[in-house]
Every structure is written in C-alpha cells, then in structure tokens.
C-alpha cells in the first residue's frame, strides 16, 4: 500500500526524457523544454522515456536501436511523427502533435511506475560486443600488453601526438546521430589523444534545417521587413539558447527560449547581453578557439563569415533596407566568441529594423536573393552543407572547445520545407 502511494507520488515528478531528434524536429523539441513536466536528461541512462521525434533516416535505425536499449528498464518510447520498428509496433505510443507530448509522457511514466505497463524489450541481441576467447582469428587475446584488439594495446612509442610526442592509446569511436548536443543527424568518427581531438571524419552530415516560411516567401513576393527581421532575431536567439544549454546554463537557456516566444519588434537585448557577461558565457570553454580561415568562412557564409570579416550581406543591395539605415555588421573576429557576439548584434539590429519597418509598413524589394540567418539564398541556390569544414577545424581542440565550436557554427544545408510546415 505504501509502495503504490509512493509510486503515485513519484509519478508526479518531472518525467525524465531523452530526445532522439530526427529531421526537422529540432525546434519542436527545444520548445518542449519550456514545459515543467518534462525534464530533458543528457544521457539515456537517466531517462525513463525515449522521445523519437521526426523522421529518422534508415541508415540510423541501428544507432536508434542501440540508444533505445541503453535506457534502463522498464522504459517506454514515444514516437512523434516517426515510425516505430516492427518489434515495438504493437504497444507503441505514436503521437502527431508536439503539444500532446507532455500529457502522453506523464501518463506513460505513471503507468510504468505503477507497473501497469511493462517496459519495452531490448531491440539489439544480448551478446557481448567483443567476446574474449583466447587467441583467435580476429586478433582476440594474445600476449599481455601487446595482445590484439580489442583488449590488448601496443607499447607506448614516440609518434605523432598532439599533446607532447609520446603516443599513448589513441581512442577512436564514432559519435552518433542521436546526441542532442550535436546537430541532429550529424555523426562523425573521432580519434582522441587524451582530451584532444586528433582526427575527425564526418560520416553523416546534419539533416537540412528548416527556415521560417517568410524567407522562402521573400523570394516570390515582397514581404514585410518587420516579419522577416523578427524571424531572423528568433533564429539567432534560438542558436544562442542551444549554446547556453550546452554550457550548462540551463535556466538562462530556458529564459532565452521564453523570450523568443514573446519577442516583439523593438525589444532590447541589452539586458540579455549583460546577463551573459555576468555569468561568464563569453569566457566559457572554446570562446577563443574555433578560429575559421578565410576560405572556411566563405564556404560557411552567413553570420559566421561576417564575423570573420567578410562584409557580404544581401540586404545591403536592397533600397528598402537602406531607407531603414541598414549597416552590415562584420569584423568581430573568427573565433567562437566573435560568432556569439555576431548573433547578438544581428538579433539586436534585426529587432530595431523590424520596429522601424513596422511603423512605416515597409516591404522588401529584392525578390531574387534573400539573406537568411543561415546565409544568402536565391531561387535555385540555397546554402549548402559545410560540415566538411570540421575535419580541418576540430583537430587540436579539446573536447569541450570542439563542442562549443560546433554549436557556434551553423553548418547544415537549408531544407525545402518551412519551419511551420506541419508535414516535417
């Protein structure tokens, strides 16, 4: 009796959920963070429910199965606009509307804790990944420290090592598509020397990112500049919110997310800037690293290129923007801190342009090209994926610095779908 009472009490706690994000689902999942009934955890080991949001590419189905099994039992999965695999179809919880998620998750959590719902079975076979069976054909076992893979290791020899020339145990692994810190769909094969990244090979590029519909509409007809610039400010603040979340500043991240939903033209972000300075965000790991070279910046385009000193912005050529007194913001620097400053400056500029444009009801006049927050876009020509830049940029950085660098760059291609499109 006490146990059922306790289970009922536990069921009222925030549900620990681990998100496995598919294509076009990043925004919806970020917005769900504002719900106090859900607690996003950073590892599947802390989670009771796995949220699979958005369409998952077939090549990632094995990775999804392994993440699913890493949730300690009894666990459940909620499929948001996604198809469960055959083994789970019978009792799968499939929903279509992100707004329903917290109710459904709370209900599933309660039924798991009270024993009404059995946990889901493992999807991967229950076998050790590399059984040690003595000397074998595949190099298992062997003699002591010089034994074969995966349990033996070579003696320490002088070799190229980014730290100090004594090569000890490079650790290589592939970091997968279902880590919310990285862009969704991004997976890479990484070799570490200690904490320092020695080599990165991108094995899959992130899913194309969906921009707000207003940017595509601007290529067909003149749109109100106020709407365009408000969307731009929201986009950059969203990127900032993600960077804050990565740095562990979760309450600041949520505050920025709430701000995004209530954002109006003419709002000031000076308060946000001084708060970030106070909490030391501009001195966090990686602030001075992630320095882009000239061709890398050109390849990436958008705010990252402008921060690195390339003063190109499609809005310069639009007479309506010139009427509003638009000046290109550029030249902060090529490191992560410069890019964060660029986001803040461009968001602030966008909000003041939006306020002035709304008063005078001004529309864009250039329908050939539009400056999106990701880069310049034309009718047949949208920003392409620039993830290969990471292969030259990340080696030599420590892990935390590399993560901050990836978060400060926007490398995905632009999707044909709009953010508000419910088809995903």
């Amino acid at each position, binding site marked *: 009796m006490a146990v059922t009472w306790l289970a009922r009490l536990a069921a009222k706690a925030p549900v620990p959920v681990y998100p496995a994000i598919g294509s076009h689902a990043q925004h919806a999942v970020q917005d769900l963070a504002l719900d106090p009934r859900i607690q996003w955890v950073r590892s599947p080991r802390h989670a009771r429910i796995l949220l699979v949001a958005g369409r998952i590419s077939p090549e990632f189905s094995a990775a999804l199965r*392994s993440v699913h099994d890493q949730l300690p039992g009894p666990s459940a999965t909620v499929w948001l606009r996604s198809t469960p695999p055959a083994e789970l179809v019978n009792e799968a919880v499939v929903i279509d509307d992100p707004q329903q998620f917290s109710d459904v998750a709370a209900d599933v959590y309660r039924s798991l804790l009270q024993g009404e719902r059995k946990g889901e079975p493992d999807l991967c076979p229950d076998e050790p990944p590399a059984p040690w069976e003595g000397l074998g054909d595949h190099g298992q076992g062997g003699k002591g420290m010089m034994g074969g893979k995966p349990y033996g290791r070579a003696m320490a020899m002088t070799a190229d090592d980014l730290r100090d020339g004594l090569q000890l145990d490079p650790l290589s*692994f592939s970091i*997968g598509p279902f880590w919310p810190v990285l862009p969704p769909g991004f997976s890479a094969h990484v070799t570490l020397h200690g904490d320092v990244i020695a080599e990165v090979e991108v094995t899959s590029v992130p899913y194309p990112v969906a921009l707000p519909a207003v940017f595509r509409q601007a290529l067909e007809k003149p749109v109100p500049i106020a709407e365009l610039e408000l969307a731009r400010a929201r986009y950059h603040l969203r990127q900032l919110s993600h960077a804050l979340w990565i740095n562990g500043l979760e309450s600041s991240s949520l505050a920025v997310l709430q701000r995004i939903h209530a954002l109006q033209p003419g709002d000031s972000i000076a308060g946000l800037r001084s708060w970030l300075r106070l909490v030391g965000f501009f001195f966090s790991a990686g602030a001075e690293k992630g320095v882009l070279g000239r061709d890398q910046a050109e390849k990436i385009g958008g705010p990252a290129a402008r921060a690195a000193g390339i003063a190109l912005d499609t809005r310069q050529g639009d007479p309506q923007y010139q009427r509003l007194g638009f000046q290109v913001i550029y030249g902060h620097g090529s490191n992560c801190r410069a890019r964060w400053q660029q986001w803040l400056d461009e968001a602030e500029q966008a909000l003041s342009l939006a306020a002035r444009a709304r008063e005078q009801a001004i529309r864009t006049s250039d329908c050939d090209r539009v400056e999106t927050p990701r880069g310049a876009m034309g009718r047949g020509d949208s920003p392409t994926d620039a993830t290969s830049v990471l292969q030259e940029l990340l080696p030599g950085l420590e892990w935390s610095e590399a993560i901050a660098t990836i978060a400060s760059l926007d490398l995905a291609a632009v999707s044909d779908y709009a953010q508000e499109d419910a088809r995903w």
Partner: protein
Amino acid sequence: MELTELATLMTVSIATFIAGLLLIGTPFSKTKPSWPQRAPFLGGGVPDTHAWSRFHVRYYPMTLLLIAFEMEMMFMYPWAVVYVAEGIKALVEMGMFLAILSVGIVYGWREGAFKWQ
C-alpha cells in the same frame, strides 16, 4: 581482562567484515543489465577500442611541482610550532612568504602545468 576485550573486538570486527562483504556483493548477485544496456553511450555511435586509455604520469613537471611546494611546506612546519607564541607578526611574515610562492602557482597555472592533457 584484556583477553576478553580482545576476543570481543575480534568477534565484532569479523562479523562486521562478513556483513560488509555481503552488503557490497548484493549488486553482483542480482542479474546484471543486458549487454545492449551496458554498451557505452555515444549517441548511437560505436566504440572501436576499449576505453581504458593510458595517461602520462608526467614525471618531470610533477617532480618540479613537488619540490617547489614541498619546500614551502617544510618552511611552514617550524613556523606552525612557534606561530601562536609569536603572534600576528609571524602570521604576516608567513603571509608574505606564501604570497611570493603563489606567484609561482599562477605562473604554473598559466603555463598549463595543471592541465591533465
């Protein structure tokens, strides 16, 4: 008698030792999580090798640090004996000594002596 006390002590300690071993052993008597659950979390990725990596001991920089700050401690031992009798003057003098040595700490910090990688 000391012998009875010793006998009691031995009995209690042996009993506690056995109880402690049983307590520690309880997680290992239940069924362990399955192999897929125990796989390392890499966001869906797979590891290539064992994650047990070797670290440098960095004998030379560690020895330098030891010598510097061990000698600082050596000076503090006789000071600690007479400090209460000598009063505030001794405290201030030791404070100046530590301040000079902390310049060394700051130098080492900026040179990366305290970083593990």
